[in-house]
């Protein structure tokens, strides 16, 4: 008799075999029949309007005076962290725009459950997202260089490697990438990117879609200058849905290809403006899909930020600002500057039971423009009087002894 365990193992073996067959077929298509559709690499971008030139409409931006030097796009290397609903579309847009190099990070595999999103196709199910993405993107534009990493950036070893690739994965190996784009779907990964970029002084853009799929945002983070991801509790775009009517039972998250496509579009637009120097680069741009409202704001770095590299970068920024000769006439900024208020609450609780207790454990809401709020508030740490419980009792036991004790329990 075969047991369930044995059958499970067999299923897994067959699944792996299937993935290998798919990969082999893709490789064959590359080498053989599909070659007809693959164009050769183009050495220099041309503005000539012929049906074989993929860059003519992009180069027209230059002729129209929108962009000063479009070809410059080929000199940039951009890292995209998270190649899911937003990241894959982001990578495709940048590929079609003719970016110099893309460095892709994702630990996940393509699944049939992802087919409500754009970019990936059912036949790619089972392949790693970065591998499948590189394959499609390379066939769209062979002029782009690709570097892919199939791992979770939040674990120790991978994070070290991630930091190394951000600081050395430029178009010229050894130089840092020009921009990091966060297209991840969780807080842990965002915080990891934030930590890395603060340490490296790497400029990055954050993007996100809410778990209810009807709002999203993009944010430019210049370490030391604009607020980092740890400077304030996570910002959210208020979708004006009554929390009481929002049903969360039985599901983690919803997703819509439309919202993810819009956010990817806003993100890449900001990337192009930032890299090519046209228009106004948004510091924070929200998207409320329910009311079609796009709140914007700018937020300065918080001198009390928990991330010590953020504070270090702020000192560095202040020093540079002081050294800079003041020549230009400063145009009054209309954007709202967010003030980090002092907290008038001084109570902290381990877990809240009532609404009143929850309120008491919260800090004040920062002063944010209409339509933008924080996911939660945190009471000011310095003003906290009493921790709610006992702290661990110091013992003489070594870590090894404690590990052994726990194991014996």
């Amino acid at each position: 008799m075969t047991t369930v365990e044995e059958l499970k193992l067999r299923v897994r073996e067959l699944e792996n075999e299937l993935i290998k067959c798919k990969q082999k077929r893709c490789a064959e298509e590359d080498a053989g029949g599909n070659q007809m559709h693959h164009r050769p690499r183009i050495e220099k971008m041309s503005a000539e309007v012929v049906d074989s030139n993929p860059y003519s409409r992009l180069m027209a931006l230059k002729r129209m005076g929108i962009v000063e030097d479009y070809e410059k796009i080929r000199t940039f290397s951009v890292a995209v962290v998270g190649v899911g609903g937003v990241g894959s579309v982001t990578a495709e847009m940048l590929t079609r725009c003719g970016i110099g190099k893309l460095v892709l990070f994702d630990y996940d595999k393509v699944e049939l459950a992802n087919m409500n999103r754009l970019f990936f196709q059912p036949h790619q199910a089972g392949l790693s997202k970065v591998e499948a993405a590189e394959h499609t993107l390379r066939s769209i534009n062979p002029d782009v260089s690709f570097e892919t990493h199939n791992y979770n950036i939040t674990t120790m070893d991978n994070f070290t490697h991630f930091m190394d690739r951000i600081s050395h994965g430029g178009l010229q190996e050894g130089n840092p990438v020009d921009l990091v784009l966060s297209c991840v779907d969780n807080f842990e990964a965002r915080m990891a990117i934030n930590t890395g970029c603060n340490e490296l002084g790497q400029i990055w853009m954050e993007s996100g879609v809410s778990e209810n799929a009807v709002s999203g945002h993009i944010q430019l983070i210049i370490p030391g200058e604009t607020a980092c991801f740890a400077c304030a509790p996570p910002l959210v775009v208020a979708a004006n849905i009554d929390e009481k009517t929002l049903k969360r039972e039985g599901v983690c998250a919803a997703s819509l290809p439309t919202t993810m496509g819009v956010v990817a579009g806003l993100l890449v637009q900001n990337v192009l403006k930032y890299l090519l120097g046209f228009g106004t680069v948004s510091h924070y741009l929200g998207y409320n899909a329910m009311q079609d409202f796009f709140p914007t704001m700018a937020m300065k770095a918080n001198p009390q930020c928990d991330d010590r590299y953020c504070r270090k970068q702020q000192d560095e920024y202040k020093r540079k600002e002081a050294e800079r000769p003041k020549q230009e006439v400063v145009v009054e900024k209309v954007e709202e500057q967010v003030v980090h208020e002092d907290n008038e609450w001084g109570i902290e609780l381990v877990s809240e039971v009532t609404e009143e207790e929850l309120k008491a454990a919260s800090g004040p809401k920062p002063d944010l423009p209409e339509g933008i709020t924080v996911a939660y508030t945190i009471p000011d740490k310095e003003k906290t009087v009493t921790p709610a419980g006992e702290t661990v009792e110091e013992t003489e036991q070594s870590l090894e002894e404690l590990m052994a004790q726990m194991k014996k329990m």
Partner: protein
Amino acid sequence: MADEVTRKAVSEIPLLKTNSGPRDKELWVQRLREEYLALIKYVENNKTADNDWFRLESNKEGTRWFGKCWYIHDLLKYEFDIEFDIPVTYPATAPEVAIPELDGKTAKMYRGGKICLTDHFKPLWARNVPKFGLAHLMALGLGPWLAVEIPDLIAKGLIQHKEQQNNS
């Protein structure tokens, strides 16, 4: 917001002192000692309260954790393997606890069998950095998740009791 039982259990877990993550060398060892002290106390408390429900151990660096949790339903014990990595940003961000064998069986999970915590967990964790540790994660994250999801999975016939399964 947590129920009264969870609240009491959490208040009896010792709080941690050292604000240190796996990227800090010596301070991380100190933090790990505190983690183990808090976990040992919590497991002892659970045993005293006749509510022993999980075991955890780690690799020697304390960066990868694994163990078992169990849930009693209709006098039958359902046991599951659990695992998680300590993120580089710990303790600012809590680890994502996974029960790989339940992956794909409930919508209250992210890919890889990572459990989906309530809206209340993240703010609660953020407000208590660095005082909350892995014992708090068990009590406020995994415990309540099991209490809601396991009875539901059993009712839907998506998990069977292991002995029953082998007998049939």
